[in-house]
């Protein structure tokens, strides 16, 4: 037992040294203790990880285990019947669904909705594909809709060569799949079934890279991480002006409609009761730009006005979902949507 506790002291000292070494001097403030259980989207988890790491540098007494179950499975844990098993924060790459909101209402769980960043979906083709520079939403829809008969590039647009088309996309458990199908096909989770699905974006990149007739989509940050290995396709949302995703077009919403907000959903009861959770959420919003634009996170931060509105929204403790009032596919103005007192929240509490 003695050796165990010695080891323990040693490891504590070491971990302290490591954390301090990582983040430099930490500001002197009230030392918090406790645990913040986080789960949810694999897309958003880099944000959670970097936030937790930076927060731990200042508050090493707060233990933050982070799971990567996916947005939907994460909501199941966030809204668990057993209150003792509920996570405090769910990372979500899509807004909470009406079904999930009903579950929350049934169990009397209030939550805070915190938009934290924007992410674009990149549509990509094999680097040897030089004919497909852009696609219209209509063409994407015809390719991806259920029972689509398009098996060859020459069926996509007259003039495209005779080349078998093979499709790659995130698995049906991912929020990315929900989002893409809703925006492109018109109905969430409605999609042809003969594509190669994978939850692992690295495998998607490899699949598109190794297949001449490939077409795939995934989070824009994964394209940033694999630049040069794939060709990016610009998207024409119907006005004849194709737009390619980049940090700028995603931020301003010009890359419309394949850019989306990412959220933290925070259990309001936990938030009200636990100072360490309040501190963590405040810290994350305060340092949002630094966290979101970090080179190992690589999403697009919201603009300052939007962060200010979200901070006020959280500070006012407004429960419920504001994003429900926004229709997918139309440009999104987060600053206006989360202005406290403006835009009545249907499920406010």
């Amino acid at each position, binding site marked *: 037992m003695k050796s165990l506790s010695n080891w323990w002291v040693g490891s504590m000292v070491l971990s302290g040294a490591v954390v301090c070494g*990582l983040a430099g001097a930490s500001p002197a403030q009230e030392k918090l203790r406790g645990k913040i259980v986080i789960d949810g989207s694999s897309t958003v988890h880099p944000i959670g990880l970097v936030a937790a790491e930076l927060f731990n540098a200042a508050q090493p007494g707060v*233990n933050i285990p982070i799971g990567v179950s996916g947005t939907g499975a994460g909501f199941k844990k966030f809204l668990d019947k057993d209150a003792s098993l509920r996570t405090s924060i769910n990372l979500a790459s899509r807004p909470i669904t009406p079904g999930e909101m009903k579950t929350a209402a049934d169990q009397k769980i209030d939550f805070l909705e915190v938009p934290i960043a924007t992410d674009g979906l990149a549509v990509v083709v094999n680097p040897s594909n030089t004919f497909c520079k852009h696609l219209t939403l209509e063409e994407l829809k015809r390719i991806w809709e259920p029972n689509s008969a398009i098996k060859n590039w020459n069926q996509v647009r007259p003039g495209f060569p005779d080349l078998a088309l093979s499709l790659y996309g995130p698995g049906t458990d991912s929020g990315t799949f929900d989002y893409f199908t809703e925006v492109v096909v018109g109905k969430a989770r409605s999609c042809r079934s003969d594509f190669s699905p994978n939850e692992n974006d690295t495998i998607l990149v490899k699949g598109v890279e190794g297949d001449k007739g490939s077409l795939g989509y995934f989070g824009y940050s994964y394209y940033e991480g694999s630049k040069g290995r794939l060709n990016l396709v610009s998207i024409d949302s119907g006005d004849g002006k194709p737009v390619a995703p980049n940090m700028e077009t995603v931020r301003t919403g010009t890359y419309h409609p394949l850019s989306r907000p990412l959220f933290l959903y925070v259990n309001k009861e936990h938030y009200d009761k636990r100072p360490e959770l309040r501190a963590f959420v405040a810290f994350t919003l305060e340092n949002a730009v630094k966290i979101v634009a970090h080179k190992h996170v690589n999403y697009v931060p919201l603009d300052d006005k939007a962060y200010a509105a979200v901070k006020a929204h959280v500070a006012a403790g407004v429960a419920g979902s504001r994003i429900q009032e926004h229709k997918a596919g139309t440009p999104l103005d987060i600053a206006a949507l989360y202005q406290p007192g403006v835009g009545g929240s249907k499920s406010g509490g």
Partner: protein
Amino acid sequence: MTSAAPSISMLYQPRLARRKACNVVFYVTGAAVCAMTVALLATLIGVVLKDGWTFLTVRFVTSFPSRIEPELAGVKPALFGSLCVVLMTGVISVPLGVGAAVYLSEYAGDSRLNRFIQLNIANLAGVPSIVYGLLGLAVFVRWLHLGSSILAGSLTMSLLVLPVIIISAREAIAAVPQSLRQAAYALGATRWQTVRAHVLPSALPGILTGVILSLSRAVGEAAPLLIVGAAAFMLSMPGSQAGGGAWNKLVAIGTDNFAVLPIQIFNWCKEPDVVFQQLAAAGIVVLLAALLAMNSVAVGIRLWHQRKRTW
């Protein structure tokens, strides 16, 4: 009569050349299969060593995973979690498994019920690990309210490895010669004395083999612990928030959230950035080293006991 001699000698060499050729073919096939297996393993180890080489320092096992500076990331919480889970799994499953094996082979008669139980244990050994994960989630995490803790994970892993431990221990006990038991009974030993002083020590090497194999499996499994809710990333050590004495600390560790090496490796593998792939490779090397260390300790114990054996 002399004319019969060659025919008799011929009788003993029917198609000799062909049989010898068969022998050579079988030898070559066997050697090739063996070489292929070793080559596959060597390739695997070579590839992960090459990818993970730059990260294989002491710092790697003494630091936390990091998204901010992956170059400084490590596997400390995951390694600690894995060791805790395997240790606790051993503490739970070995006494239960060996006890059940002793009962089944030494005490229970050859009844229909006994055979039915053994058939079921053999079947349980073939159940996919994810099923045990679901069972663990329902029983330990939810029903017993243990949450996604090391204790819940270890109990789930114990269920997973129990059938293998029981079966291998039973085989080992059955291999102990009957004469040994009869000699003990002849000298007036009770059944328990016979089991404790003769049967178990003689069967120990075989029992240990089963224990090693199953605990190694417990170290490498990711699926059941994913279901039970092991964290993908831990940025501090399990139980580090607890104060007080050693007992408090132990309880805190047992009931805290945890990460394990296979899940940590899995999550690093999913990242597009090459540095995370290297981290994953280094993690695999650490996992292999932990497995090897465990196995060699057990192999050592087994050899030592085998040398003591006199029959």
